[in-house]
């Protein structure tokens, strides 16, 4: 106890009298830290443009309910780390990377490969590996950040909402840094990164009566917004951007890699009216089979849906009609998955990745063929099988529009 007290007091006095301050550079008081929540990476000639978004308290501090407000800052540097250090030349607070939630990377930057830029986020001790990666199509990351912040919204919050709702349509996904890193380091499978797109609304009359949006709409005749749709796919070896899968093709891809949470399939009843089905469960098995040296891969999808909306008046709940719906549904899913497969074959990248399945199922054989995988991949015969069923109908059994006979 005596010794403890002595040690404590010595350490503490040393610290107070600044003897240790020089040794301990790690101290960063919470009050002078800037929390980076979203990062944007862009290409600027041969440099990297780094945009950071911090959530800080707004200038209107007098009220008790201080408003959180996003601010963004931009620097350029040869590498991310250098660009990061340039912030210190003009920012009055320390930048803290420990709370980065989203990393936006512009399409132009990924054209030369993604791996070089991920290293910083893997290596730095502050950054978390659960930050989500997004690639911005056409526009730069800075522009997309600007777009949201200028409209008075919170970029981090917006991305958060987009990410949360990604399962509703299942046209995109979430890829945290560590997952991206482990697929990028695998030389046989291509990696996918969710795609952010900026969409210009064609119609000018906005549905919402929100004052803010209205004012934005006045400034630019075409209002733009950020949507999360599709995937950017990267080459397995160089991690360069190969192409995009968007819309229903992306959903096909999600079907193949088992990332479907929910989604909407619109089919027609016998009379040509729309019937909307909601996906509630989907499971895909990738089954590889060797026919001699030739590889045959079957995608077996099991799907179950709900009837969510019936626009016509036909009574669908007969064996015959349900069969019809299921058949259409099967066809649609099959088509979507096929599109995704076609994309993979076209660019010769194993995006699913089938290599993993083969490795697990035929470890001995895999050892022999793994070096020629890219060649073998193009020669694979793909089969898609969909086995679906319609499970439930919500609360009304018959369509609202159905009339009593006679």
């Amino acid at each position: 106890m005596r010794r403890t007290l002595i040690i404590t007091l010595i350490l503490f006095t040393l610290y107070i009298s600044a003897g240790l301050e020089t040794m301990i550079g790690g101290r960063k008081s919470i009050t002078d830290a800037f929390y980076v929540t979203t990062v944007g990476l862009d290409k600027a000639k041969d440099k990297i443009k780094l945009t950071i978004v911090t959530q800080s308290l707004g200038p209107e501090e007098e009220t008790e309910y201080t408003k959180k407000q996003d601010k963004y800052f931009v620097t350029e540097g040869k590498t991310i780390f250098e660009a990061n250090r340039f912030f210190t030349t003009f920012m009055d607070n320390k930048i803290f990377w420990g709370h980065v939630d989203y990393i936006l990377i512009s399409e132009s930057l990924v054209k030369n490969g993604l791996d070089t830029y991920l290293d910083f986020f893997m290596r730095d001790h502050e950054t978390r590996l659960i930050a989500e990666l997004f690639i911005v199509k056409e526009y730069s990351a800075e522009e997309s950040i600007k777009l949201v912040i200028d409209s008075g919204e919170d970029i981090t919050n917006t991305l958060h909402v987009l990410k949360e709702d990604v399962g509703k349509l299942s046209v995109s996904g979430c890829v945290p840094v560590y997952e991206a890193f482990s697929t990028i380091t695998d030389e046989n499978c291509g990696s996918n990164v969710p795609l952010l797109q900026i969409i210009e609304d064609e119609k000018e009359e906005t549905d919402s009566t929100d004052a803010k949006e209205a004012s934005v709409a006045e400034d630019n005749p075409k209002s733009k917004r950020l949507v999360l749709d599709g995937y950017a796919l990267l080459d397995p070896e160089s991690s360069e951007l190969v192409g995009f899968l968007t819309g229903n093709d992306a959903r096909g891809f999600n079907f193949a890699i088992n990332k479907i949470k929910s989604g909407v399939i619109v089919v027609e009843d016998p009379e040509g009216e729309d019937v909307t089905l909601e996906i509630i469960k989907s499971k895909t098995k990738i089954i590889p089979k060797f026919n001699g040296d030739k590889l045959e891969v079957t995608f077996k999808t099991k799907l179950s849906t709900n009837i969510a909306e019936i626009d016509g008046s036909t009574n669908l709940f007969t064996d015959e009609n349900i069969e019809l719906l299921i058949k259409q549904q099967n066809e649609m899913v099959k088509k979507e998955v096929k599109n995704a497969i076609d994309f993979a074959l076209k660019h010769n990248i194993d995006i699913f990745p089938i290599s993993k399945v083969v490795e697990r199922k035929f470890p001995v054989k895999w050892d022999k063929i793994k070096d020629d995988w890219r060649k073998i991949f193009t020669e694979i015969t793909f089969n898609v099988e969909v086995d679906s069923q319609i499970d439930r109908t919500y609360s009304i059994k018959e369509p609202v529009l159905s009339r009593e006979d006679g």
Partner: protein
Amino acid sequence: MEKGKGKISIRQVMFLFVVTVYTPSVRFVAGYSAGKAKQAAWLTPLVTLIPFLVLIYVLNALLQKYKGLSFMDIIYDVTSRFWGKIILLLYLVWLTVLLALYVRFYAERLVTSIYPNVNMNLFTISMLLIVAIIIRAGIVAIARMNEIIFLIELFVILSLFLLMIPTIKTDYLTPISSMDIVPVMKGSIGNTGLIYITYLFFFSDRFSRTKEFIRYSLYAGIFLWLVSTIIIITSVGTLGHSIVGRSPLSFLIAVKNISLLGVLSGFESILVASWILTDFILIIVFTYSIMNITKSLLNLRDFKPFINIFFVILYLLTWILGVNVFELQAFSADFAIQMNLLMQVIVPILIFFIAKIRKKV
């Protein structure tokens, strides 16, 4: 009560053993075995159980025969006074180097993980200072501290494991086939090199209730097997063997992935903080072993006056040992493990055979 004074029970010894093995295995095992055995890395601890069983059989035979004697005395008796001194000198030098390695690693680990801008001297000097103070309280107090630290550590690792279960992907841990046998064997060398039980025998004259040795060491072995499997499964299962194989602190990176309810994160700080506790135990136990060897080698009456000067040597040695962390890692993987294997598995077994030949056991 009075009779047991100054002695520690076999149960406490096994707690010391478990904690000293846990410390380096967190840092080293996952990376080493993932590098060698790829996705089958989590099987390597199972293989390690075999040399472990052999070793505890040998040590038990020696312990039961030479009751109340330390390992130094056993070596003297089995070989001869002269050869015994040479063997002990080897042990002394190697343990000092190993201890320097651990002190350095302990500081490096803190600096690379959560204190990037802090002078490393602060960590080494403060730790050595505290060890120098506490070691004077004797092995009994150390063993008691260790029991509490063990509980804390168990709590930390189990709760982290529970938090990490959702991130574990079985894809990263399979397939296992007959092709993995050789890599798994190779990978298990890393684990085998970490069975630090022989080093604890340098104070085996302080053991009491030695009859329970086999029972408790089996418990300890099974426990360690579980813990190292958990460590490997969590790190390889969340990150994949490619990342684990190339990162020095893979378990830490795996812990970095934890996000509880999407709100709480940054658990790596707690993990690193809990490592300080186990590092402390490792350093103090090794120091105690070294001091006991010194005492026996130089026929000292008391080792207490030698602690401070020894720590000065040790501090200098941590800097002499390596220039940067890469060199240290290479040293650890390419030299230390093999040397450990020799010093704590092969040498005791040899001594056992010599004793058998000379009909001393």
